[in-house]
């Protein structure tokens, strides 16, 4: 059991010149057999293992990660958290995630630096305004906080925003979820890994799954670059590589993988204390604790696994950001990167059973998976432990595509789908 982090441990280690800190999690060699193998050591996979151990008493678990912990989309997103989704099914799961986030630092004994600074969605035309009113009403009916703001109220919140009527993209109003905000994405992965490890979960990094072993329509284990690992149950939580893993198990998926890009500016003094999103002009921006502006762009139109993305996509996003925030025009952007997102036809995730018995999949979060991390792990742990989905993720089954019960959330972000 890892030592608890507290003010006392901080002081004690300060006197030891901070040389006495333990490793946050072990780095064991994989055993030959586990009850549950979770493929993918990102936030969702680690949350799955953590809640399997915490809520369902399953501790004979390996989390297998091809690279390093949280090195995929968990470390590549723009860290925005919100639950302002239109449909009841989405409201249920995203709100569950937000509520878990609100208690996660205490629960994990790891500061995930959750900052509920509000998430603002802008309206630039009459259609946007009407759509925002409709969404805010639907969201409030689901008991989730959301409100409509006028352009003047937005200007009071974000004085640097250009709302002049002559602007290329005039701001007519917007919606605000005050409980939304940002969290430190790496800390979410590290905190979940440390807490899962403390409950006995083996986290195996630098271990790529090369095949999924089956016998009579039932999963029996996985072949990896570090040997064969047998398992009673296997969960696939690999985001952009979901189709690749599904192909190993012999079934097809309704997802396509695209690079999604983000970039950060040089650090500047505090100037933006909320998250501003605009679906119409396609940009979302917030300021990190280090002072960098974190901006998210859209996905490339074509499929890709390159973790780079195309330049025109960034150009489009930066042009929009300059129109909204003329004050940013002299900022230099320091870093740009891409993550591979798995996009579903209805922009909603797939969390549940697969055609292979005891093989489960959690994917399709597309451009907005970070906000769902704890909720996704919580319902997926239930699904793996019980063999049946929780009511919160039952609507997100793989067979909804054959049944025609799609959950169309293309407008949820207003951006990036």
């Amino acid at each position, binding site marked *: 059991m890892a030592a608890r982090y507290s003010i006392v441990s901080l002081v004690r280690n300060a006197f030891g010149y901070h040389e006495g800190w333990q490793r946050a999690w072990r780095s064991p060699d994989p055993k030959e057999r586990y009850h549950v193998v979770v493929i993918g050591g990102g936030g969702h996979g680690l949350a799955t293992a953590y809640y399997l151990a915490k809520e369902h008493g399953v501790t004979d678990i390996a989390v297998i990660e091809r690279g390093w912990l949280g090195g995929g989309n968990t470390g590549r997103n723009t860290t925005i958290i919100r639950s302002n989704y239109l449909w009841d099914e989405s409201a249920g799961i995203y709100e569950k995630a937000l509520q878990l986030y609100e208690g996660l630092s205490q629960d994990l004994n790891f500061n995930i630096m959750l900052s509920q600074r509000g998430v603002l969605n802008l309206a630039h035309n009459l259609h946007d305004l009407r759509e925002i009113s409709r969404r805010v009403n639907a969201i409030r009916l689901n008991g989730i906080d959301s409100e409509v703001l006028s352009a003047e109220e937005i200007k009071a919140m974000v004085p640097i925003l250009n709302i002049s009527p002559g602007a290329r993209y005039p701001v007519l109003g917007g919606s605000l979820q005050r409980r939304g905000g940002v969290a430190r994405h790496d800390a979410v992965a590290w905190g979940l890994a440390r807490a899962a490890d403390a409950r006995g979960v083996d986290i195996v990094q630098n271990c790529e799954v090369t095949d999924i072993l089956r016998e009579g329509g039932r999963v029996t284990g996985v072949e990896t670059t570090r040997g064969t690992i047998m398992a009673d149950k296997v969960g696939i939580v690999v985001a952009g590589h979901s189709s690749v893993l599904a192909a190993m198990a012999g079934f*097809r998926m*309704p997802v396509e993988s695209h690079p999604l890009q983000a970039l950060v500016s040089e650090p500047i003094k505090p100037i933006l204390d909320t998250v501003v999103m605009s679906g119409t002009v396609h940009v979302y921006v917030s300021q990190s604790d280090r002072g960098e502006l974190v901006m998210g762009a859209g996905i490339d139109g074509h*499929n890709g696994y*390159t973790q780079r993305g*195309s330049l*025109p996509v960034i150009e489009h996003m930066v042009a929009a950001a300059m129109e909204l925030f003329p004050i940013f025009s002299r900022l230099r952007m320091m870093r740009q990167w891409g993550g591979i997102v798995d996009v579903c036809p209805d922009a909603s995730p797939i969390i549940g059973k697969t055609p292979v018995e005891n093989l489960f999949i959690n994917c399709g979060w597309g451009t907005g998976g970070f906000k769902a991390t704890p909720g996704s792990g919580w319902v997926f742990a239930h699904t793996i432990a019980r063999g049946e989905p929780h009511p919160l993720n039952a609507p997100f089954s793989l067979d909804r*595509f*054959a*049944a*025609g019960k799609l959950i169309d959330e293309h407008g949820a972000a207003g951006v990036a789908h």
Partner: protein
Amino acid sequence: MLLITCPWCGPRDEIEFSCGGEAHITRPSEPEALTDEAWADYLFNRTNPKGPHAERWVHTHGCRRWFNVLRNTATNEILAVYEMGKPRPDGEGS
């Protein structure tokens, strides 16, 4: 940025084109005879490979004509450009 060779206009920047998704998906001739699963497979399921991928592109800001491209999704290397209706040049898939 991709440099795509339009069969009619020659090599042009990616911004002139739009991607139309996976190629060689044939609409079933008798949709009413299909099971829900088979119809969903046609409508939603995609191969989404990490490697060579046959896809449709249109030269939107040029000649506005469609063609197929074989592109490696792991490296962005364009392996072949060929006419719609022709089989994949690498002999894979349908």
